[in-house]
C-alpha cells in the first residue's frame, strides 16, 4: 500500500472517525487506498479541509482529490491539465506548453485562490498569483482541492478555495526510472528519478526538462475569414528538480526536507489581434523552495509539529520591442520569503480534538518596478472538531468545526477570520451527509498593489468576503462505489481592489468594488467492474456579479465578472484491463465575457482529450508507453481573449523503471 506522505509525516495522531462512512478507516497513513486502482476522488482521507487528517465525507466543505493514478492516466504536460476538470474551477490559459496559467475557484479571481505545496503557501507575495505554467506533475503524489472560503484555517487569499499539492515521499527499497516525451507541436521532455530507503529513512530525487518551440498552428479569424496561422515567440524551456529526504527516528518523531528548483525560460508574445501582431517579450523565472517539517508525538493526545519554508524567486521580463527611458523594457523582481508554522494537535477526548498554531512570515521584494518592500506577517489560529454526543438515541451524528484565525500584516494591519462548519450524518446506509460552512475570508493587498512605483497605494485595506456553502453527499454501492455531491455556495466580497486611472497614463489600486458569487456544483463518481471502469461527471453553475457602483451611473454594476463562465461541465472516464488503460475526457465551458460591461464575449467551447497507456508492472512500471491526443476534435477556441490555443496535437511518452 502506498503511503500518504503528508498525513504520515505531519499528523501522527490517531483520528477516530464517526461511523457511517462505508469503507473508510481512520488509521494514520491509511488515508489513500491503493492508487493502482483507477481512482480519482480517493475515498478518502484529506488534510486540507481542517489542517488535520479527516475523511472527506466528514469535512465541513467540499473537497475533491486527484490521485497520482489519475495524473498518470491523463494527457497533458502541466499539473493544471490534471486538475482543471474538477468542479468549481476556472482555468485561464495564455497559450500552450508552459505558458502562464492561473486557476480560480467559485467565480473569484486567481488571486483569491490559495495554492499550497505540502500545506505551505505557493502564491506569490508579490502579485498574489500561482503560475501553473511552472508546475509539472513529476513529483506530485496527489492534489486536494478544497472549495470555499478558508481564511480561518489558512489566512490570506483562501477566498474561493484552496489547492493543496501533496508531493511524493520516498518509497522503500531502491527504485529509479525515467521517461522521454515527444509531441507533434515540436515539444519534448525527459525526466529521471531515483529513490531509496527503508521504513525509517528515505531519499527521492527527480529532475525533468520540458521544452517546445511553441509554434503550434491555430485558426485566426478577423470576423470575416479564418486563416490558419502559426504561433511565434511562445517557445519554452522548463527545468525542474526536486530532492526530498524523509526521516523517522524513534520516539514518535517524523521529519522531512524538500528542496525544489524550477527554471523556466518562456516566450510571452502576447495577444494576436492581427496576423502580424505577435510580440517578442520573454519571461524568465527561477524558483527555489526549501520546505521542511518535523512532528513529534509529545504525549498521548498531543502532537507538536513545525513546518518551515524558505523561498527565493528571481524573475525578469524583457521585451526587446519596447524602448523605455532609453533602453528596452527590462523588469526584474527578486522575492525572498520564509514562513515558520509551529502548531500543536490535541485530542481532549474522542469527541473533541483540534489544533492551535502560530505563523510567522517575512516577505521581501526588490524590483525595478516597485519600491523595496518588506512585509512581516504574524498569525495565530485555533481550529477544533466537536463530535456532538446527542442526549437521545438519534439515527444521525453531528460534527461541528469552529475555527478562528488572526492575521496581522506589518503594512495593512490585522484581520480576524472566524468560520463555523458542520457535518451531519442523515443516513448511515447508504451514507447521506449534509455539510455546511459559514465564515469570513480575506485577501491581503499584494506587494505590487502597495509598492508599485507608478501608482502603488500604501493605504489599501484587505479585501473581505463572507462565504457560505451547503451541500449533500451520498456514498453507496451500485455495482461499485458511487459518490454523488451537490453543493450551493455564496461568496460576497467587499473592498475589492481595483486598479483605476489617476491620470491618463498611470493607474492606482483602490478598495472600491463589491462582488457576489453564487452557484451550484454537482458531481458524481462511480467505479465499477471491479475497478476496471471509472466514470466521473461534474457540472458547475456560477453567477458572479459586480454588485457595487464605483461611481454614479457605473455601467459595470450588475454585470458578470470577466472570464468566469456561467457553467462548466466535465466528464472523465477511464477503463483498464491488464496492462492497458484508456482515458477520455470531455470538458465544456460556457461563454465568458471579456469586458466589464459585458458587451463582448468568448463563445462556449468543448474540448476532448484521449490517452492510452500500456504499462508492464506497477510502482514503478518496468516499461510503459503512453499516447495522448489533445484537442481531439480540432476545436478552435480561446480561454483568454486574443490568446490562441493550439489545435489537435499528439504526444508520446516512453517510461522505464527499475
Amino acid at each position, binding site marked *: 500500500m502506498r503511503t500518504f506522505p503528508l498525513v504520515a509525516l505531519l499528523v501522527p495522531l490517531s483520528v477516530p472517525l464517526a461511523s457511517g462512512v462505508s469503507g473508510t478507516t481512520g488509521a494514520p497513513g491509511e488515508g489513500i487506498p491503493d492508487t493502482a486502482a483507477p481512482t480519482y476522488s480517493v475515498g478518502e482521507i484529506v488534510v486540507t479541509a481542517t489542517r488535520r487528517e479527516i475523511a472527506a465525507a466528514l469535512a465541513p466543505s467540499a473537497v475533491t482529490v486527484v490521485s497520482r493514478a489519475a495524473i498518470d492516466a491523463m494527457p497533458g504536460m502541466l499539473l493544471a491539465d490534471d486538475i482543471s476538470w474538477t468542479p468549481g474551477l476556472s482555468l485561464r490559459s495564455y497559450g500552450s506548453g508552459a505558458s502562464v496559467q492561473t486557476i480560480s475557484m467559485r467565480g473569484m479571481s486567481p488571486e483569491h485562490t490559495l495554492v499550497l505545496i505540502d500545506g505551505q503557501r505557493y502564491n506569490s507575495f508579490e502579485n498574489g498569483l500561482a503560475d501553473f505554467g511552472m508546475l509539472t506533475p513529476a513529483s506530485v503524489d496527489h492534489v486536494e482541492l478544497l472549495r470555499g472560503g478558508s481564511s480561518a484555517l489558512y489566512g490570506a487569499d483562501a477566498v474561493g478555495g484552496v489547492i493543496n499539492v501533496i508531493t511524493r515521499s520516498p518509497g522503500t527499497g531502491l527504485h529509479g526510472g525515467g521517461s522521454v516525451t515527444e509531441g507533434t507541436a515540436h515539444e519534448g521532455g525527459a525526466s529521471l528519478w531515483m529513490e531509496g530507503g527503508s521504513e525509517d529513512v528515505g531519499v527521492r530525487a527527480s529532475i525533468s526538462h520540458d521544452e517546445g518551440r511553441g509554434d503550434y498552428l491555430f485558426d485566426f479569424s478577423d470576423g470575416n475569414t479564418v486563416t490558419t496561422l502559426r504561433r511565434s515567440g511562445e517557445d519554452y524551456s522548463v527545468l525542474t528538480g526536486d530532492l526530498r529526504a524523509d526521516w523517522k527516528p524513534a520516539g514518535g518523531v517524523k521529519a522531512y526536507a524538500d528542496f525544489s528548483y524550477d527554471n523556466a525560460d518562456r516566450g510571452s508574445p502576447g495577444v494576436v489581434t492581427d496576423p502580424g501582431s505577435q510580440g517578442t517579450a520573454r519571461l524568465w523565472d527561477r524558483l527555489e523552495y526549501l520546505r521542511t517539517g518535523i512532528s513529534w508525538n509529545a504525549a498521548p493526545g498531543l502532537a507538536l509539529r513545525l513546518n518551515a519554508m524558505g523561498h527565493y524567486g528571481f524573475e525578469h521580463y524583457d521585451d526587446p520591442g519596447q*524602448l*523605455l527611458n532609453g533602453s528596452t523594457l527590462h523588469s526584474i523582481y527578486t522575492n525572498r520569503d520564509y514562513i515558520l508554522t509551529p502548531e500543536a494537535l490535541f485530542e481532549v477526548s474522542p469527541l473533541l480534538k483540534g489544533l492551535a498554531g502560530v505563523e510567522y512570515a517575512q516577505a521581501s521584494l526588490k524590483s525595478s518596478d516597485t519600491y523595496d518592500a518588506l512585509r512581516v506577517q504574524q498569525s495565530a489560529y485555533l481550529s477544533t472538531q466537536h463530535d456532538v454526543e446527542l442526549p437521545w438515541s438519534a439515527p444521525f451524528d453531528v460534527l461541528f468545526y469552529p475555527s478562528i484565525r488572526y492575521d496581522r500584516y506589518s503594512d495593512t494591519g490585522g484581520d480576524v477570520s472566524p468560520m463555523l462548519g458542520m457535518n451531519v450524518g442523515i443516513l448511515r446506509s447508504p451514507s447521506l451527509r449534509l455539510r455546511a460552512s459559514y465564515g469570513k475570508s480575506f485577501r491581503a493587498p499584494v506587494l505590487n498593489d502597495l509598492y508599485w512605483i507608478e501608482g502603488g497605494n500604501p493605504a489599501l485595506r484587505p479585501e473581505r468576503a463572507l462565504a457560505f456553502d451547503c451541500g449533500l453527499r451520498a456514498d453507496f454501492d451500485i455495482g461499485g462505489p458511487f459518490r454523488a455531491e451537490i453543493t450551493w455556495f455564496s461568496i460576497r466580497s467587499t473592498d475589492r481592489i481595483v486598479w483605476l486611472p489617476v491620470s491618463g497614463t498611470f493607474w492606482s489600486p483602490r478598495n472600491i468594488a463589491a462582488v457576489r458569487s453564487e452557484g451550484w456544483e454537482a458531481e458524481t463518481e462511480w467505479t465499477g467492474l471491479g475497478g476496471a471502469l471509472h466514470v466521473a461527471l461534474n457540472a458547475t453553475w456560477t453567477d458572479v456579479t459586480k454588485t457595487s457602483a464605483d461611481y454614479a451611473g457605473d455601467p459595470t454594476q450588475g454585470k458578470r465578472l470577466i472570464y468566469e463562465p456561467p457553467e462548466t461541465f466535465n466528464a472523465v472516464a477511464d477503463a483498464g484491463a491488464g496492462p492497458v488503460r484508456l482515458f477520455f475526457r470531455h470538458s465544456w465551458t460556457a461563454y465568458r465575457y471579456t469586458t466589464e460591461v459585458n*458587451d463582448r464575449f468568448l463563445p462556449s467551447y468543448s474540448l476532448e482529450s484521449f490517452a492510452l497507456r500500456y504499462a508492464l508492472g506497477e510502482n514503478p512500471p518496468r516499461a510503459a508507453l503512453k499516447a495522448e491526443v489533445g484537442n481531439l476534435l480540432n476545436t478552435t477556441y480561446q480561454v483568454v481573449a486574443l490568446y490562441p490555443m493550439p489545435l489537435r496535437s499528439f504526444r508520446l511518452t516512453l517510461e522505464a523503471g527499475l
Partner: protein
Amino acid sequence: MRHSMMVLPLLAACALAGCVRDPVSALVEVPVPSSRGVYVVDQGNFGRGNASLSYYDLATFHVYNDVFTAVNGKQLGDVAQSMAIRGASGYIVVNNSAKIEVIDIGTNVNTGTIQTGAGTSPNVMAFADDSVALVTDLYSGSLIVVNVHTKRVTGSVAVGANPAGIAIAGGKAYVANSGFGSGNTVSVVSLGTLTTTRTISVADNPNGVEVTPSGKVYVVCTGAYDFTDPSKDTPARIVVIDPASDAVVDSIYIGGHAMDIAIGADGIGYIAGSAAVYRVDTRADVLTGTFRTGVYYATGVEPSSGDVYLADAGDFVGPGTVSVYAPDGELRTTFGVGIIPGAFAFKTNSEF
C-alpha cells in the same frame, strides 16, 4: 432501486449541463453615408482587443458605435490610438495590433490594412504628401514610413526615444520624443530626404504636436512624473516653435500634466489639463483661462463650427462619453461612445 432514485437527480443535473447558451450579440447600426461627421477613436483596453470606432453624424446628430465592426464584420484590434483623414480615406492607427486599418470614409468600408511589422507600436500618423505618411513608433526611436497607395512600409526614420505626436509644418515633420516621460526634445525630419535634420530642446515629456492656423508648431510637454516625490513633478508647458527657423519662440505655462491640444480654425486651442480644459490663444501664445473644469482624456475642435469635443474615459473600463460644447462654453450634447475615447477625426465636406 432506492439508490437509483438518488442517482437520478444528479444525472439530471449533469444532463442540464450545456444548457447555457452564448449571448446574442447586440446588433449595431450601420451608418448611412453622410458628408459631415466626427469619428471618435475608442482605444479599448490594452490586451483585450476591444478598440472600436464611433461616428457622430453631423447631419442627423445620430451616434453610431462600433462602426468598423458593424460595416466590416471584423474587430478593429487592440488599442486604437489615433486616426488621420486624407482625401476619401481614413487611417486608423491600431497600436498594439501593429497595423493601420484603412477605410473609405464615405461608406466606412475597410479598403485595406497596413501592417507596420511585428514589434512595432504605431501611434500617430501624419502625411508627408498624398502617398507617403510618417507614423510614430512609440516603443522605439523611429518613425515608420508608409506608402498609403501600396499600403506597405517603405522605410524608417531615426528620431528620439519613444516618439509620440507628429505634425507637418514648413515641409518638415516635427516629432515629440517623449522618452516615455524622460524625453525633452523634438526631432525635425526633412520630408525631402526623410532624415532627421535637427533636434530641438523643449520641456519635459513632449507628447502632442499641433500646427496653428498661422503655421506655428505647438508642442505640448506633459511634464515629468516623480513618483517618489510628486512635489518634484515638472509642470506641463506648451513650447512654441517657429518652423521657419526651428527656434523655440515661446513657452506657455499650463501646470499639472497635459497630453495634447486641439486648435480651431480661429486659432483658439483647447488643452486638457489635470483638472480642467484650458483655452489657449495661439495668436498671442497665451493661456486665456479655463474652458471647462473636469478631467477629460482628449479634445477636438470641429473645423467648420468651432465646436469643442471633450472625451471623458470614465473609469477606463466601461463606455466613455463625448460632450460637445459651443465655443462660448454652452453644452450642445453628450453621447456615449466606446471604451476610452482617446482621439477625434473630423470629416468635412472638403473630402468629397
